[in-house]
C-alpha cells in the first residue's frame, strides 16, 4: 500500500500543491501543510508540482 508523505523540513508552505489537488486532500493550515489521506487518490500531481521535493509517494509502514 502507498501513501502521500511530507518532508516537513523541505516544505516552504507556498500552497501550490493545495491548488493543483483536484480532490481537496491537502490543506495549508496555520501550523503547516496537512495531508487528508482519506481523500488522496495518489494521482501524483502535487508531487510533480512541489518545487522542493517535499512531497513523495511512499510505502505505508
Amino acid at each position, binding site marked *: 500500500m502507498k501513501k502521500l508523505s511530507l518532508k516537513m523540513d523541505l516544505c516552504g*508552505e*507556498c500552497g*501550490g500543491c*493545495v*491548488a*493543483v489537488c483536484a480532490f481537496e486532500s491537502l490543506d495549508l*493550515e496555520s501550523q503547516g501543510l496537512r495531508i487528508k489521506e482519506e481523500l488522496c487518490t495518489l494521482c501524483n500531481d502535487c508531487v510533480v508540482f512541489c*518545487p*522542493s521535493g517535499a512531497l513523495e509517494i511512499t510505502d505505508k509502514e
Partner: protein
Amino acid sequence: MKDKYDCIVVGAGPAGSMAAWVLAKNKHKVLLLEKHKEVGLPLCCAEAVSFRGLSICEQVNPAWIRSKIEKIALCPPSGKELKVSYSSAGLVLDRKIFDRDLALRAESSGAELKVNAQAVGLINNNRGEICGIRMKKDGRESEYQTKIVIAADGIESMVGRWAGIDNALKLEGVDSAYQYLLKADPLDQECIEFHLGTKIAPGGYAWVFPKGKGLANVGLAITPSLGNNIKAKELLDFFVMKRFKNFSVVEWMTGGVPAFSRRSQLVKGNILLTGDAARLVDSLSGAGIANALLSGKIAGQVASEYLVNGGNSPDFLKKYEEEFLKIKGRELRFYSYCRKIYLKMRDEDFEEVIQFLKEYLKDEDSTRLTPIQTLKAILRSNPKLLLLLRHLVW
C-alpha cells in the same frame, strides 16, 4: 453567530489589505483575517513590481523599496545576453515590510485585523446564500456573519472551492518556483536578469533580482508538466553554481504561480476573488503584485457601493469582474496566449528572439516600449513562433 460584519476579507496579502483598506475608509465594518501568525510570512514572491503597479497603493512608503531597476538583461542558453538600459523599469520590494504596512494601513482606517485566524468554511443561509464564515483561532472555532466575502487567500484559495468554483490548477497552468535570498558576487545592483532555455528552466526562467547591499532574490520557475520530474530547486542549485563565484544563502522559499486563464472566475454570488485566488497573474512573467493590488482595490470599491445601496441584488457585485477585466482583461489574455507559445519554444527560438531584440532595440527608444509592444514586435518578426501553436485547439 458572534459578530456581524459588512465584509470579511480572507487573507492579509496585498490584495486583501487593499480591499480592507478601501472598505474601512468608506466606514464599513470589515474583518481582515490572516491565517499565519504574522502578516507577510511565509514569503513566496520574487518581489519585483513596476512603478505604475505600485502606485495603485496611492500612498507609497519609500521603506517598501529595496532597489530600483535601471537595466534588464535577457540571457539565452548560448550566454549571448542582451542588456538594455531601462530606467524606471521597476522596483524590487521588501514584501515583509510592504505587506505589514498595507495591513496596518487597513487597520488604522478601521478594519479589524486578526492574525493566526484561519477561515475553515462558509456558512449558508436557508436561501443558499453565503451569510458567514467559520474561523479557527487559537484552536477554537467561531462563526461570523457577513454580507460579502472577499477571498484574498492566495493560490490555494479554499474560499473559492467552498463557494463551488472549480479552481484546481492544471500542471501546465501553474509555475513551480524555488528562490534563494543570496548574498552573491558578482552582482549588478541595478540590473535584473532573466535566464531562458529549455534546460535551464523548462517552461519558465531563472531570475536575479537585486535587493541592495549585495543581496538578490535568485530564483527559478518551471512549468511542472514539462519538468520530467526535475525539481525547480535542483535546477536552481545548478544555475546558482554556474552564475555566481561566491554566494551565501540567507533565506529560501518555494512558490506556486497560478497562470491566468479564460476560466479564471472573479465573482460568485456575494464572494469576490482577488489576486492569486482569482489567478490574476501575468502568465508569461508570473508577475502578480500589481494585479493583486488593483483587484483588491476594485473589489473593495464595488463591495462598498453594494453596501451603500443596500437594495442591490448580489448581481451588482459582478461589476467588480467587469471593471477589473475592462482594465486588465486584454493584457492578461494576451500574456496567456504568449505563454502557450513560450511553452513550445526551443533553445534556438530563444536565441533568435534575443538576436531580433538586439537589432530592434537599436532603433527604438526602449524606455518608451511597453512589454506588450515588444512582445507584439517579436511575434510580427518571427511568424514561426505562431506556427508553434498550430497543434493547439483554442
